[in-house]
């Protein structure tokens, strides 16, 4: 069991194997595209975001976090019909923020992960909203109840996803 502390000098840093680094984000993007066909409610989840947060907090490297976020986001963008970069920029910010925060906070407990996911889900949505309205000119509907519900739902799923990621991460 990983031991973590809030001190930057004592935190555990993890790494992921190359197959896991490639396959897990791909699986997340694939499931995000496939599951809504069978379960339409699944569109409220953002599996690639959860993987981005999970990778970033485990690696605790801002550089790795922002690169992971940007790659996953661009991959997700490529499947939509919107310009590439909307999810890319949002997840870059989230990846950087989550890894930076992971250095300073204990993110090994379920409660902390739950709150962390809600916060970064909100950050992601705000950044996405601003870019899509400001740069691309898309009409966006911001509804607080929907965003809150989505945030909580993603946080709950996030706890499960982080538990799965715990199984594949390796101590450096």
């Amino acid at each position, binding site marked *: 069991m990983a031991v973590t502390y809030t001190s930057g000098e004592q935190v555990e840093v993890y790494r992921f194997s190359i197959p896991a680094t490639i396959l897990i984000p791909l699986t997340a993007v694939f499931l995000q595209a496939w599951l809504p066909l069978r379960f339409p409610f699944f569109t409220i989840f953002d599996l690639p975001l959860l993987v981005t947060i999970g990778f970033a907090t485990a690696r605790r490297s801002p550089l790795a976090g922002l690169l992971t976020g940007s790659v996953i986001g661009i991959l997700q963008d490529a499947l939509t019909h919107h310009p590439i970069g909307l999810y890319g920029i949002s997840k870059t910010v989230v990846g950087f923020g989550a890894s930076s925060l992971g250095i300073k906070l204990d993110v090994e407990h379920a409660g902390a992960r739950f709150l962390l996911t809600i916060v970064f889900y909100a950050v992601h949505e705000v950044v996405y909203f601003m870019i899509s309205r400001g740069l*691309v000119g898309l009409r966006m509907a911001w509804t607080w109840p929907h965003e809150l519900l989505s945030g909580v739902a993603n946080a709950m799923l996030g706890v499960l996803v982080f538990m799965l990621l715990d199984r594949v991460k390796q101590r450096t």
Partner: protein
Amino acid sequence: MLVGVLFAQVLGLAVQVKRPTDSEPTRLIRVWAVDVVTPLEKALHWVQTSTSNVWHNYFYLRGVRAENRNLKQQIERMSLEQVRISQDADQARRLQALLAFKEQFISRTMAAQVIGSSGSELSRAVYIDKGESDGIRPDMAVITADGIVGKVLRVYRSTSQVLLIDDQTSGVGAILDKTRIQGILRGTPAGEVVLEKVMSDEAVPAGEMVLTSGGDGIFPKGLLVGRVTKVAPGSELFLNIRVRPAADLSKLEEVLVVTKIDERQAQPDRAGAARAVDILAERLPTVPSKPENAVKADTPGPETPGTVAPKGTGSDAKPKTASPEASAGSGATATRKTASPPSSSVAPSGNSSGTSAGTSLANPATTTGTPALKASPKPVKAKATTMTTDAPKPQPAVEDTPH
């Protein structure tokens, strides 16, 4: 580093926004992403459908006999209905031919399976398992039996991206079925479908059907879009009309891609050029023929074209095609009675003398004496009309099926 990555992406975004269509600089990224994701989706879809087929086709056959029986009955009913509709269609084609009206026909479609989605609430698009190698091209219409679905947006080698009609960037030319008010169908960020650009002084009832108008150049005219669910005053001078799509866009499995649309002038089925007077005459209520025609019809031998000369008794009378010329200028009193049931479409009432004076000219469908039409399941009633003319003798009433 963060600033650099963000700046690069913002720059890329700006380039795409400025040049949204021509040459598409992000094509390569999209192709890679689609090539990575869609094979998995196809494989999973294949496994799912195969399992489902095995279960439903070989194991779970409960209720199949009853369903088969019901379907057979339904086919019989629909066959009868089809005859009636085809008669109406013939008539419509003749009128369209007169107006040199160009119709759009869906002449070829391709069935496709929906294998994936964009995975985003804000991008309402799906992927189908047919692509460039199957003849799919951008801007082809995608429909289901229930209604329209969207249009092909991007085409890859073996898959295509379909933009759904409930996406905020989509637009469909639409027309209301009864009021014939035209508007533009758009999606909203929340995933609803609204009909825009309808003036607020128009009366749009809830529940009215919305069809494609053909004005967008993608969807042929007359395809079902959905129904109006709510009408409210909108911003500026327009109404806010919400439409529920006829096709369930959240549960798409199989769709049809319209790969070819023919635009051709309507051709009447019958030989010879149709004239307006012919069409109008056929639509007129019963008018008796001229006395000399009647005399000819009474006598055995070759029948005058255009007269309906029941042979033998009235019950087994076989109607002939009525000529409009025969009806023009004829003078007699003819009475149209309620045709109930339509099985007695053209039958002289009470008079078995076989006179042609009661020639029916009302509907070519009836004058052709199509047997299936006689068995039409719908008891359609016609208004009783009486035409008083200078006929030398009273004419028998002719029951007729209205058009």
